[in-house]
């Protein structure tokens, strides 16, 4: 399973592609895609690059546990939360 992410252009914030075909700040709002659907969704999501909404979208692997979306890599876990060494900043501080 995969989720599509990017950084918002104007502010740089991490965002995720949703079922509503827009970008939201929380990984839990992301659309979880079967691996086979990720390329097509990424193509659609990439149209928002031309609309100057986001930069450099890509898909990354996740799993779903008890209804929560969990990133598999340390990199994406850190992007979803914020720096592991500063819990007062990033999404985790909100």
């Amino acid at each position, binding site marked *: 399973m995969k989720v599509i992410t990017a950084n918002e252009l104007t*502010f740089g914030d991490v965002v995720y592609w949703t079922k509503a075909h827009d970008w939201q700040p929380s990984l839990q709002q992301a659309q979880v895609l079967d691996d086979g659907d990720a390329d097509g969704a990424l193509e659609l999501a990439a149209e928002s690059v031309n609309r100057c909404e986001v930069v450099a979208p890509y898909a990354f692997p996740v799993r779903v546990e008890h209804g929560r979306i969990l990133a598999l890599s340390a990199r994406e876990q850190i992007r979803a939360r914020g720096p592991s060494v500063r819990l007062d900043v990033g999404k985790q501080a909100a």
Partner: protein
Amino acid sequence: MYRYDDFDARLVGERAEQFRSQVLRRLAGELSEDEFKPLRLQNGLYLQLHSYMLRIAVPYGTLSANQMRKLGSISRRFSKGYGHFTTRTNLQLHWTRLIDVPDILRELAEVEMHCMQTSGNNVRNVTADPFAGAAADEIEDPRILCEIIRQWSTLHPEFSFLPRKFKICVIASPHDRAALLSHDIAVQAVRNSDGETGYRVSVGGGLGRTPYLALEVGSFVPKRHILAFIEAILRVYNEAGRRDNLWKARVKILVHQLGIDEMRRRVEAEFAEIRESGMLELPPAEIERISEYFAPPDFEDLSGECPEFESAKRQSKQFAAWVKTNVHDHKAPGYALATISLKPIGLTPGDCSSQQMEGLADIMESFGFTEIRVTYEQNLLFPHVRQKDLFRLWQQLDALGLATANHGLVTDIIACPGLDYCDLANARSIPIAQEIARRFADPGLQAELGELKIKISGCINACGHHHLGHIGILGVDRKGVENYQILLGGSGAEDATLAEILGPGFDSEGIIGAVENVIETFRQTRKPGERFLDTYRRIGAAPFKERLYAH
């Protein structure tokens, strides 16, 4: 310190306004990301894990109180209340918004600062000995040449598209406090047998995937020709450096593929041509003009013992401990240099809060300090402190959380931002540094271990200088899991060596135990007073390997 002339001020101001226009065109969709990316990188703006990161140049690591105050203000208003000092003596703001960057650049220009050439394939911020102007063994202030190089290399059209980034370092003492030989060009002021000052120039140092120490290409370049000589090196590199492979594009690869003799031959041929034209000969009057900006302050005559200082050391053990580790001898009697450790136990190496930056600016104003230095070891330094002011200074630093007494000790760890912030990283560096610092926090233990330099990088690019660590740690990605290799025996000082990998890596918990075991092996085998590095050089890697991997 150097002050902008009208040309500098106009150039930097115009550059900020150009970038404002470029950002507006990007946001309006007139520039694509592909078109915009090189423009933002030329202004030090990266897109990293959480946000845009702005890298602000601190030329040769020198800041005024006014500049430090501005960095504090900018990091509070435009980032999240802190900044990160890097091993290139720059300041990174990890939480900037694209839309704010033109305003940040305008505000930086107001205090004669900028972000140019903090990224991209050009001549990067030139670094210098942080003891410049204060070291007793110094031949001249290395920042004079740094400033000349800065003026020559800034927006130099011929060197705006080098095969890869290019780093220059200048020192003027036999002691190396700037990791000289790990630079693309390493310049060291020396005297010849006639007592004239010139420069020993080495080329082809660098860390990263293929680490090398620089090799000598000119044993004594006369002062007036130094810019011509550096330009000759850059020309050879610009023409012959590889552009087909990112990993083989640095000048170190060219130097080591050609061999230093062939490199020297090519540089000398270019040098002869440039010298013949006379275009880059430095007029003594211009050297003199720039030197005046770096004239030392008028030192008071303070010879003899300083009773206030001696008494304060007797009365406060904590102050005495700080003096022992963080205060260094100065060329002027009665003065000292004071290192401000940015390595409080358990916090992020190199981080400085907006409040601390502004507090440091207050201290500078109240003590009359004209300068503060940034060191490549991610600390700060006051270069000219009267001994009689040290106790009061220490108290004020302590109130800011900036009086950690650990300079050069096991907890004074270099760590890159790593996977907590950096887009290139494979593993986290900061938590490893924090945990090692916690394990060795006991001041008595740190003092017993003596000089011990741990350097941690979160990827092969080596921003954390792991090859130069007495103990180096390199974070890698092992099938999606953070893994850490351990290296031993590196040095970034005048006895420079590259550390060697000891064996297979460890997970994030295992690496802490591995470091403890390495240090325990050292404690069991060292001779009295011996540094870790000296023990390692004496006994080699085998006892450490045995301890870590035998079971």
